[in-house]
């Protein structure tokens, strides 16, 4: 872990720890909902990558914008979302963030600046860059962060929008979560050369950072966010991280592309929550008992939200043709 105690207050450090625990707990519950056949469809677990979303989002203001991915629960929680409305969305319920119309892969929470998860790999690169253009034109000072995976670096859209962001000096940060796998394929098999060098080719300042170290991620993000606010953007981050689960919750037998020993190594030796926990105790920011209590609170909160969502009503079938257009209440009426 970064030796950054002086720069990180106890409040900030504990909030980051809590947010990482919240994401892990959310995902464990979501996985259980899938395994017990209570959740429609599939979902993609963020477990293992918590330090990325939390380290970055803790450097942002609620008015700053993010775009997220199919593996997006972590970004959503980190940007301030509420468990109840998230679980309701995962279960297709009326009280979900998108009234059950989006589901796991499309949660948007505009009240916290989350412009939405996107189920097209790389699909939100333009949206985040556009949000940054709005910020520049309206002089709002907002920064936009585009989360995407290493798999999205194979999409042409990325290079088109990075080119424009660099030409126009937009306040956007491209946050590439390199978890080592592009769906079921090793990243080294799909990405030639260096990922950061691709951004550097556009004159974009790029950094590679340990995505399992929340303090390192947060420290760098704070610096870059403030610089982006001043018009020094765009920036590119490659965050080296790992996804504990398969590509999605149903990707269980995956030894054909990834060894169990590799997964165990990351879980045991590089887990962002275990590392942060040790750091908090070592620096006397919290005691074991206090952190256990924190985790217990989060677990209870999540369990209550799951119970609430399971009992919550589905949207009325009359909603099926609502929200197609802003000005036509029922498009098929």
């Amino acid at each position, binding site marked *: 872990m970064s030796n950054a105690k002086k720069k990180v207050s106890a409040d900030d450090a504990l909030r980051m720890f809590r947010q990482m625990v919240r994401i892990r707990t959310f995902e464990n519950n979501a996985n259980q909902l899938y395994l017990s056949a209570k959740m429609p469809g599939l979902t993609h677990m963020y477990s293992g990558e918590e330090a990325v979303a939390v380290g970055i989002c803790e450097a942002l203001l609620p008015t700053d*914008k993010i*775009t997220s991915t199919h593996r997006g629960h972590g970004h959503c929680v980190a940007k301030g979302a509420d468990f109840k409305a998230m679980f309701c969305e995962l279960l297709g319920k009326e009280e*979900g*963030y*998108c*009234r*059950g*119309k*989006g589901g796991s892969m*499309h949660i*948007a929470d*505009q009240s916290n600046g989350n*412009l*939405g998860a*996107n189920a*097209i790999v790389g*699909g*939100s*690169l*333009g*949206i*985040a*860059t*556009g*949000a*940054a*253009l*709005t*910020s520049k*034109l*309206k002089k709002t000072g907002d920064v*936009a962060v585009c989360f995407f995976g290493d798999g999205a670096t194979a999409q*042409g*859209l990325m290079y*088109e*929008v990075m*080119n*424009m962001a660099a*030409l126009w000096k937009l306040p956007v940060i491209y946050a590439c979560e390199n978890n080592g796998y592009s769906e079921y394929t090793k990243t080294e098999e799909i990405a030639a050369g260096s990922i950061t060098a691709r951004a550097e080719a556009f004159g974009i300042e790029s950094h590679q950072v340990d995505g399992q170290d929340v303090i390192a991620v947060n420290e760098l993000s704070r610096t870059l966010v403030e610089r982006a606010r001043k018009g020094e953007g765009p920036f590119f981050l490659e965050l080296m991280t790992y996804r504990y689960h398969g590509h999605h919750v149903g990707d269980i037998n995956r030894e054909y592309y990834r060894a169990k020993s590799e997964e165990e190594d990351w879980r045991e030796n590089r887990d962002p929550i275990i590392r942060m926990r040790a750091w908090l105790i070592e620096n006397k920011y919290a005691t074991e008992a206090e952190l256990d209590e924190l985790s217990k609170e989060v677990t209870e909160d999540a369990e209550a939200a799951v119970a609430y969502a399971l009992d919550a009503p589905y949207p009325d079938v009359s909603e099926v043709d*609502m*929200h*197609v*257009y*802003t*000005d*036509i209440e029922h*498009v098929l009426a």
Partner: protein
Amino acid sequence: MRKITLSKAVNEALAEEMRHDETVIILGEDVAEAGTPFKVLSGLVEEFGTERVIDTPISEPGFMGIGVGTAMTGMRPVVDLMFGDFIFLIMDQLCNQAAKTHYMSGGKLNVPLVLRTNMGATRRSAAQHSQSLHAIVAHIPGLKVAMPSSAYEAKGLLKTAIRDDNPVVIFEDKLMYQDSAEVPEEEYSIPFGEACIKREGTDITLIGTSSMVQVCEKAAEMLQAEGISTEVIDPRTIVPLDEKTLVESAKKTGRVIVVDEGHQSFGVTSEIASRINEQAFYHLDAPTTRIGAMDVPIPFSPALEDITVPTPERVFEQAKKLVSGELINAA
């Protein structure tokens, strides 16, 4: 009333809306100093500056995606797609992102974006610069689709599009940019979903979109000389579609031809004809027929290209067959 070109009408609509609302911006290739290859936007950058009339690299998916992002965060971008054929390059941003954002977010996020592009063959530009692809866009729920048939419609529909909170695609016929029509000096707009009866008649209805309205009007003149009274209707927007006006006319005349410059198969003509058959069947004296572009890529050679698109002569011949009952007898 004064007459101005369709090109000038589009330019005026943009200038008026940009003066009225500072969140309106233009994004696209060669939109600023060049004013586009068709010179439709000439003069706008001088008035509104390069911050609002933004030249982009040749990156259609990129600037369309950026347009969507600006629209989701408080701007009203008018994205300029130089040729309608390039719509295939931006399909993800248009159909997976812009069209679905409002629905997928349960009504929380809006995409007030206008995509201005063009259509129309016979410019000797061959298969990749001549297509009329509006039906492909109209197939996707969440998008509105406007098809101006003259300078008057071009201005009025574009102003409505810019003020609409939904993504709207406007297809301008690139061969009509220099065509003039009467356009009022004073401000006006044309509501979506309201067809315009261009000519009243009692024997047959011709429904035409975009430049096919002119084709239908010419055919109507020829039919008039034969004593056939022809109604000509311009839907003006195909999404939303003013079914009521189309169906009422079908019930009145009992015979309908739908004319559109998109490929005939799986297109606008099929859709409109089908709705008329469903809703006016017992009032019809003949099957509703369709004339679209030939189901071939648009060829380069003038000798070939001209026969791929609907012409007044073909509409006239078809109408005569419908009125005489020849088509029924053939069946």
